[in-house]
Every structure is written in C-alpha cells, then in structure tokens.
C-alpha cells in the first residue's frame, strides 16, 4: 500500500500562538482514519490545512501525490470535504446545488452523475426542493453528495455529526459507509467516540498540537476505544509536565 496523505513536521502558527507543532501523519490508500481529540487540540486547523484552505507555516504536506500549498489545484480536484456547516445554498434546490458544484469541478456527464449521487444519499425524491426546507440531517447527506460528486480519492470530514439527532446520525453513517466501502480514503475528525468507533479502521489521537498515538481497529484492547483514548491523553499530559519540569531545571 502507498501513502495517500503524508504530513511531516507540520507546524501551524497563528501569530504567536502555535496550534500544530511538529505533526507527523501518514494515511495509506483506502484507510478510514478517525482523528480524535479534545476541543482546541487543532483538529479543525489540521483538516483545513489538508483541505488546502489554510497554509502550513512549516513542514511538508502532500495529498494524493501533490504537495500543498504549491499544487493546491491538483489536490482540490482529488479532494471532497464535508464540514459541520453544509456548504450549500439554501435558496437553490438540491439539484441546483449539485449542478453548481459539478460545474465548478468540471464533472463529466454531470446529469447522470447527479442522479447517481442523489440516489446514494437517498434524496432523489426531494431533488427539486429548496435546501433551506431540508432538515439538518438531509442537508448533511446532501453535503456528502456534494463532496463525492467529482469522485474524489480522499474524503475529509470535519465533525460531520455536529447538530444531528440519533436517526439523522444513523442515516449519515449509512451514507458514509457506502462511500467508504468504495475504496476511498477518509479522514474524519470527531469527538463522538462511539460514532467514530463504528466507522473508522484506524484511530489517531490529536492533542497539544500533535498526534499522540495511533491504533488500528483490531488492536484496540478490551477496554475499547474510550480506554485507549483516555490513556493516550493522560500520557500526553504527563509528557508535557515532564518537559516543563525539565525545562525548569
């Protein structure tokens, strides 16, 4: 297997504030990686850098064989993004939203592809309705449709479950599985461990601006993902304390 996302020694600073420090990250083609971590750990910032929306301060980032930020256009063509905002226009219908994004991505045989995608996310019978009349869950499913319209190699999901109720989450997961099964690489941030546990094949813990630990699905010990997550965070905290103590000496 080859690495489809490769990040090394990534640093992101906002002015004097360091958000990501010396982050290394590697994803093989076809993996479904869940990025877990407390709020403010830098998950969203990291995903924005992977999605070419934000520039790295230092370090190298490559996605689908192209480096960021210099080959951003090539990366963008191979990338689908779903964030906690739908990125859809409320005053356009479901169909028109897809039509717009399809034109922006220069999708071939657009109308056939739109039919297919709408079918996949289960919105065929609502295709002519305005997105503003959709429930949050339906909007989020359409957002997935928007993200996979141009058949991207890599899918980035930023807290896709935010603001959804139980049923909507289940339907979203069903739609995600259908996409993930089709051999796409997925990176998803989440703070909902149980949702992530159902979906992903690998779990990385991001805290204090860097990856603190990574575990494959089959390697999770008896105490489950939650146990692993807690242990890793604790370890990270102790490490930070030790560093401080050393620095003080």
């Amino acid at each position, binding site marked *: 297997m080859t690495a489809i996302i490769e990040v090394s020694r990534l640093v992101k600073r906002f002015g004097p504030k360091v958000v990501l420090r010396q982050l290394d990250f590697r994803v093989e083609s076809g993996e479904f990686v869940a990025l877990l971590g407390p709020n403010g750990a830098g998950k969203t910032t990291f995903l924005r850098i992977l999605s070419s929306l*934000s*520039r790295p301060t230092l370090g190298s980032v490559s996605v689908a064989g192209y480096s960021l930020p210099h080959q951003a*256009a090539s990366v963008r063509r191979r990338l689908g993004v779903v*964030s906690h*905002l*739908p990125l859809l226009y409320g005053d*356009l219908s479901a169909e028109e939203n897809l039509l717009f994004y399809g034109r922006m*991505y*220069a999708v071939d045989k657009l109308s056939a592809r739109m039919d297919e995608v709408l079918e996949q996310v289960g919105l065929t019978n609502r295709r002519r309705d305005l997105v503003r009349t959709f429930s949050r869950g339906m909007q989020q499913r359409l957002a997935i449709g928007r993200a996979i319209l141009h058949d991207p190699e890599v899918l980035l999901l930023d807290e896709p479950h935010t603001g959804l109720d139980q049923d909507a989450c289940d339907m979203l997961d069903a739609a995600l599985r259908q996409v993930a099964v089709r051999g796409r690489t997925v990176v998803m941030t989440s703070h909902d461990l149980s949702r992530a546990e159902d979906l992903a094949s690998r779990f990385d813990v991001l805290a204090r601006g860097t990856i603190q630990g990574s575990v494959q699905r089959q390697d999770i010990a008896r105490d489950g993902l939650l146990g692993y997550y807690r242990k890793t965070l604790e370890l990270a905290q102790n490490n930070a304390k030790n560093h401080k103590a050393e620095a003080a000496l």
Partner: protein
Amino acid sequence: MSGFAPFMRALSAVVWKDLRAEWRSRELLSAMLVFALLVILIFNFALELESTVRANVTAGVLWVTFTFAGQLGLNRSMAVEKDRGCLDGLLLAPVDRAAIYLGKTLANWVFMLLVAVIVLPIYSVLYNTNLFIPGLLLTILLGSEGYVAVGTLLSSMAVQARTRDILLPILLFPVAIPVVVAAVKATGGYLQGLDITEIQPWLNLLLTYDVVFTAVAFMVFDSVVEE
C-alpha cells in the same frame, strides 16, 4: 486551473448560481429596492425636491440612492457565502480564485443595474423628469462597475471581521469617493444637457477608476480569501 475555458466556466457557474438563488428568493433585490425608494422618499422631504431645486440635485439623489442600496446588496451577497460555509465550498473547488471574484462582481453588478432599471422610471414619473438619456445610462453602467469591483473585494474582507455589519460602508465609502463624484458630475452634466466635451473628463475618470480597481482587486482577491 489555468486556461481561458475553465476560467469562463467557473465564472459563469458563480454568476448563474447567484442569479438563480436571487431569482428564487428575491431577498436581496427587494431589500435593495425598498431601501432605494425609502432613500428617495427621505430626500424628498429633507431637500423639498421642488422643480426649481430638483434639476441640480437629481444627480446627487440618484447616486446616493444607488451607492447606499448597492452597499446593502454587497454586504448581503457576501454574508450569504460566509454563513453556511459556502465561501469555503467555493475555495475548495479547483478553480482560479479570480474567477470566483469576477463571478461575484458580475452578479453584484447585475443586481445594482436592476435596481437602477427600476428606480429610474419611478423617479422619472414621480418628479416628471426624463432620465432616459443614453449618456446617463452609460454613466450608471461605468459608475456601478467601479463601485461593485471595489465593493465585492472589500465585502469579502468585511464579512470575515468581527465588526462585519458596520465595517463595509466604512471601508468602501472613502475609497469610492472618486466614483461618486465623477458619476454625480457626469449625470448632472447629461441632465443639464451640457456639451460632451464638459462631460468627457468625468467619463474618463470613471473609466480609469474601473480599470485600475478591477485589475487590482482581481490581483489581490487571492490574498483576501487564502489563509
């Protein structure tokens, strides 16, 4: 990313999207129009637009109306992009950012011209003045282009600031003064039936402003949206 055809395709997609959404909701246009009519109404009482005074102030009243209504539309048009994350959606697409800028500018220009198309006949009827002079229409075309070219750029900065609701007019009005001055004088010139040689300098100024600011905004838009 490069090449003329993909550029035009992205540009027309953005224009189509804005016009289509506006055709549906008519939120922006109706707000701009009602606002424009209210401004004219307020001027009517504030200046007592009697027939003797009117000839001199019509140009000023018209342009204050256009710039205020235009500012309202510019703010709204970018806020829509920002609120549902659509701006990110646009930026994620593998298209030249300049195409996005030009698309938004063109759509905003169309909205401003539509407001003018509706306000002009109403003003003509209300005050019994003929405003349908070809040169005057040209002035509106040139004046509003420069205004939305700068306005679209500045509104995409304003919506990303904490003080976004009040920021756009403060940023836009001081740099739009040349447009307003030139447009008012040219419009006044046409209304008074002045010779073209007296109006020409103002049209030249408008043209200069349009070219300079469209080109600069086109070049720096990338820096405004790219983190």
